[in-house]
């Protein structure tokens, strides 16, 4: 399952745009901009969602010092039906585009595909990432925004953010992708859509485990293993599974989760943040900047996705999940 990239494609720049509520994020200082209107001055949430994707990609190009014409591929996705916000953003950007869906694991699967294209020599520059817009996603997966249903403590809050990265040929001064693991779809029989962390933790476990095993690595070879969107409870469950598999407790401090930390300890967000834009925003701002700064030398990013739909839930299906990982190093 592990892919090795001999040419080590680099993450040359990151662009992260977030919504008004994300002003409270602990990662806020790393974002390129926090917009004060959740609809980006557009008429509908979905149009705002599209605008957000466009802006994130524009930041990527600006920071990477390139123009749209120089970008060979745009790879990304979101959680709206048929991914119209990303598809429509691709229309505006006019870059050759493939839409990818791995729910909240999309950011990493996009980077994996971009790295493969780079490795193949098919692309000099690709933009890869994912996004989510709270209102658009809630209405699709749960209830109307203004409906007064009680969310349990296990629930997670969908983030409004878009995170994209510029993937290109190896450069010494940029974080580089050494290896990646494409995860299997794992289903441990969890069926509560308000407890996604519990559904996704086994997928994260499987991917981390097989990545480490095949790479013949231990957890301490990394400075940080960051999962995307397990939330506080999901992270605890993942740690529980790792302990069960024989990993020592002290190694687990290297293990963190973007969703669990995104809004700090604020209880109004229950178990933490989620959404394709959550992990994408943290990976392509905080993690990339800290890698560049030299804080971390080797990082494993593990994005997890719950592959359910409102329909599958109503038809009483369990929630299958996946997790994809990329191993990033910095000289």
């Amino acid at each position, binding site marked *: 399952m592990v892919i090795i990239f001999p040419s080590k494609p680099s993450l040359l720049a990151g662009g992260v745009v977030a*919504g008004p*509520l994300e002003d409270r994020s602990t990662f806020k200082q790393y974002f390129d901009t926090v917009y004060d209107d*959740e609809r980006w001055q557009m008429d509908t*949430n979905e149009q705002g969602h599209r605008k957000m994707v466009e802006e994130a990609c524009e930041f990527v190009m600006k920071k990477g010092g390139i123009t749209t014409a120089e970008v060979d591929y745009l790879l990304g996705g979101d959680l709206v039906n048929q991914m119209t916000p990303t598809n429509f953003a691709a229309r505006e950007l006019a870059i050759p585009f493939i839409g990818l869906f791995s729910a909240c694991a999309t950011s990493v699967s996009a980077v994996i595909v971009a790295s493969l294209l780079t490795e193949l020599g098919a692309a000099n520059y690709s933009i890869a990432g994912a996004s989510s817009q*709270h*209102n658009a996603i*809630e*209405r699709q997966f749960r209830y*109307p*925004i*203004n409906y007064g*249903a*009680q969310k349990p403590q296990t629930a997670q*809050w969908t983030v*409004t953010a878009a995170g994209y990265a510029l993937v290109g040929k190896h450069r010494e001064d940029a974080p580089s992708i050494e290896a990646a693991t494409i995860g299997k779809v794992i289903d441990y029989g969890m069926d509560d859509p308000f407890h996604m962390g519990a559904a996704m933790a086994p997928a994260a476990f499987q991917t981390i485990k097989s990545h480490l095993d095949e790479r013949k690595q231990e957890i301490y070879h990394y400075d940080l293993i960051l999962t995307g969107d397990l939330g506080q409870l999901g992270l605890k469950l993942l740690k529980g599974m790792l302990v069960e598999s024989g990993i020592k407790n002290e190694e687990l401090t290297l293990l963190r989760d973007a969703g669990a930390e995104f809004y700090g300890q604020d209880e*109004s*967000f229950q178990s933490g943040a989620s959404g394709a834009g959550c992990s994408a925003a943290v990976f392509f701002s905080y993690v990339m900047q800290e890698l560049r700064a030299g804080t971390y030398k080797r990082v494993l990013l593990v994005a997890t996705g719950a592959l359910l739909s409102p329909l599958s839930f109503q038809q009483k299906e369990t929630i299958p999940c996946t997790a994809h990982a990329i191993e990033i190093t910095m000289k």
Partner: protein
Amino acid sequence: MVMTFIFAFIVGGIFCVIGQLLMDVGKLTPAHTLSTLVVVGAILDGMGLYEPLIHFAGAGATVPITSFGNSLTHGAMAEAEKHGLVGVLTGMFEVTSSGISAAIVFGFIGALIFKPKGNID
């Protein structure tokens, strides 16, 4: 009169606690919970118990969603008494529906003047 207020509080509160238990213990969605309570209201009225409850607790019995099942049943039974079997169908919305008509009208108006916002506080 003061007593009616107290009874309204208590009876209304109890209906809500039953609903909460259906959600928490029974693991029902809000839609399942409300549907169940509506059926309960209809059955209570069939047994002749809901009217005395309204007399006793006022809004404590008319405001919870159970009263919707009650008034539908009440209308159906009143018409059935007068017109026989066909009244069961024709009488259904005779008494009730202020809740439905208000929700439809205010829903329409609400849609015209408000926009969904994802705020948390």
